[in-house]
């Protein structure tokens, strides 16, 4: 259950009930005790304020016990985050936006885009110095901001680009020391390293906590059997992080390299997110060694699921922001009945609603990311941001097209693609790790 910030204070409630009973009593009225009682309280010296001050102090102690140090409310990114954010914003505007339509058709990330992303240091930012990267701290908040900015360019390209640092993050977050040393250094190099998480399966009501893909113990290693859906970078990834259920252990992630016998990769054209090269994986008795199983007994699969949800919410916010800005510009420009269509409440209010819903979603996403970053429980917050992003994203997509009318339906404008992206994003699980 989602945690509320309030610690009930039964003792205080009890004394307040008593006070209340006195205040409302006929007795107090009949004997003219209201005024004196109020005067005590008003002076702040005697019974009333004294009592409440003590109660406040008690509440303070009670409240400070389960709380985290330094909890505060602040929406200002750090200087480093601002820098990364503005860099990614420019990259999204100048490189992603113009490349998106062709990439959508081609079902692949353009080589120039991946090269530029590597140059910008997308991989470097994901890997700590100890493994050849440049990351100072593991920050889901920073990566939520990056996801938001990239998706402002195009959600399909953004997902494809993020799949790679996401794979690095999963190894970093959950891998053993040996696994980190084995897999991470490549991401800090000059080239984009395609790699991808693979959680989703092709079933309605898929539960990411219970993959039907199985990993059976075989010799010292494992034999994987099952199928994964909508895996990004399928035709280029060097390796996949495949979730599979291990008997008596639950779901685990396995590093499966693309040339493993028994692994079949098929391009899977979908409604949206096509630039990320979505593929199906069939695992037909794929054998891997014990070192392929990510992490040890402490492996936290729920965190994999939860962070992915935060990632999809952040991607949705970014693409939604693009829709909002596009709808505002188009609507202000488009004249009907002698004036811009945004002079009409039916259009203007629809746009205002998009802005309100997106801002609410953005704050929920940031909160979940912040809690994840500080090691606080965030399953509830991730779940909420996921539920909200599926609903808000889909609505922003469809309303964005609605503002453009027929122009929104033809591919001359990007909102038709964004409509497809936002609906698709709403069904995803896994696939990203901010």
């Amino acid at each position: 259950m989602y945690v509320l910030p309030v610690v009930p204070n039964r003792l205080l409630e009890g004394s307040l009930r008593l006070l209340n009973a006195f205040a409302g009593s006929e007795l107090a009225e009949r004997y003219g005790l209201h005024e004196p009682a109020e005067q005590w309280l008003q002076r702040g010296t005697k019974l009333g304020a004294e009592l409440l001050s003590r109660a406040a102090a008690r509440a303070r102690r009670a409240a400070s016990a389960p709380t985290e140090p330094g909890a505060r409310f602040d929406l200002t990114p750090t200087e480093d985050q601002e820098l990364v954010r503005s860099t990614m914003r420019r990259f999204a505007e100048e490189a992603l936006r113009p490349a998106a339509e062709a990439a959508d058709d081609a079902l692949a990330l353009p080589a120039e885009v991946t090269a530029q992303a590597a140059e910008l240091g997308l991989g470097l930012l994901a890997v700590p110095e100890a493994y050849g990267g440049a990351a100072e701290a593991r920050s889901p908040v920073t990566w939520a901001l990056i996801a938001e900015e990239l998706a402002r360019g195009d959600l399909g390209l953004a997902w494809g680009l993020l799949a790679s640092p996401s794979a690095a993050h999963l190894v970093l977050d959950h891998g053993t020391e040996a696994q980190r040393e084995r897999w991470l250094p490549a991401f800090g190099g000059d080239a984009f390293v395609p790699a991808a998480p693979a959680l989703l399966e092709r079933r309605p009501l898929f539960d990411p906590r219970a993959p039907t893909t199985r990993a059976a113990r075989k010799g010292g290693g494992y034999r994987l059997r099952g199928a994964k859906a909508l895996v990004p970078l399928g035709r280029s990834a060097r390796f996949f992080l495949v979730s599979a259920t291990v008997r008596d252990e639950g779901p685990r992630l396995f590093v499966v390299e693309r040339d493993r016998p028994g692994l079949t990769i098929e391009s899977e054209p979908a409604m949206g997110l096509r630039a990320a090269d979505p593929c199906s994986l069939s695992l037909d008795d794929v054998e891997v060694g014990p070192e392929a199983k990510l992490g040890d007994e402490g492996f936290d699969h729920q965190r994999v699921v939860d962070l992915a949800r935060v990632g999809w919410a952040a991607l949705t916010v970014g693409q939604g922001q693009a829709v909002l800005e596009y709808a505002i510009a188009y609507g202000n420009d488009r004249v009907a009945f002698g004036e811009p269509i945004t002079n009409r409440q039916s259009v203007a209010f629809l746009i205002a609603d998009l802005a309100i819903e997106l801002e609410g979603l953005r704050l929920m996403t940031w909160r979940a990311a912040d809690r994840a970053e500080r090691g606080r429980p965030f399953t509830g917050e991730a779940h909420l941001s996921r539920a909200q992003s599926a609903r808000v994203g889909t609505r922003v997509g469809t309303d964005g097209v609605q503002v453009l009318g027929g122009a929104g339906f033809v591919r001359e404008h990007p909102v038709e693609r964004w409509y497809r992206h936002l609906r698709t994003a709403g069904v995803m699980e896994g696939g990203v790790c901010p």
Partner: protein
Amino acid sequence: MIHLEVPKRLRPLVALAHSVAAGYLRPISRKYDRAEHAYPKELDLLAAAFGGLNEAGGLGGAGVRGESKRPPETARERRPGSAQLATVLGLAELCWGDVGLVLSLPGQGLGNAAIAAVGTAAQKARFADRWAAMAITEPEAGSDAAAIRTTARKDGDGWVLDGEKIYVTCGERADLVVVWATLDPGRGRAAIKSFVVEKGTPGMEVVRLDRKMGIRASDTAVIRFDGCRIPADHLLGDEAIAEQAGFSGVKQTFDNTRPMVAAMAVGVARAALERATELLADAEVRPDWGGPLHAGPAAAERLVDMEAELEASRLLMMKAAWMADARRPNSMEASMAKAKAARVANAITLGAVELCGAAGVEERELLEKWARDSKILDIFEGTQQIQMLIVARRLLGKRSSELR
């Protein structure tokens, strides 16, 4: 540094407000819902306690007044990010107890917020510790406040007010009423000023109290002004009519009060959602946190959606307050928070009734009351539609003559 939690130093205040709501307001909630127009005398003691506590510094410098525009006076107040955020967080907790009672708290009227926002230092000092109601709406002018007909005429060294005001919250009980009146009906909103009228001033008459759907603990008065004479310095702010300034001098009140209404909405919505969650848990229906979307019972999925909508509302409310504390313009954010939280509160309280069936509508639970109480939040201090106008104009860069 991005961080979205209730600040540690405000947690005692939040916990205290919650205890007051649970121990003091909830027990008398139904009583004053039934006894409409009866004054909740228990509130005197509570208001006195708040007063004493504020003097003693026990509430961390925060009452339930919106006062962020006044310059900081104490070291505690000078710390950034406290007053307005404390106000909305405390208010949300109190309204988890009962919105109607909180609206009736002596000394905490919307008129107080207006005086704090636009009064001169002398006026603030003079009207401190007085309970001030707010009178804007008229029979023929609701959302279109520029159309009000109540007039203020200069007469000797005073003003004379004539007109009729409706929907005046606490209009009968408050010590003062802040009245919007026009200096010149032909000059639109720029000529509208606010005036402070003392209770009992000759020419001011409370005509009747309205019976209402909800917040029945709060009195809602019809007040008539008939040649009502008040002193010259009871005009709040500047008497010059500045055509370009529009509603300036009065509308910044809303930048403070709209996040407060959002806070009321967040409070009552959480009350309803918590209770519905408990009752459904008794019926073995619980959301599967961390599990798939859509796979649980429909009622559990509804609870998740409501929780998400409430969280969005709560964070928008906090953002609007945080901006005010940082002395940043927050008109759009205040309207976003108010628009979202109020409609969500209405949807959640009505949805909670729906999910709980008979228990939702029977008076033995408070669910039905919250569903009645919440509706006003999407209406007063600017309806949903007015908030949308404000947000849309800002987003689209439109003047009010373009987007009407």
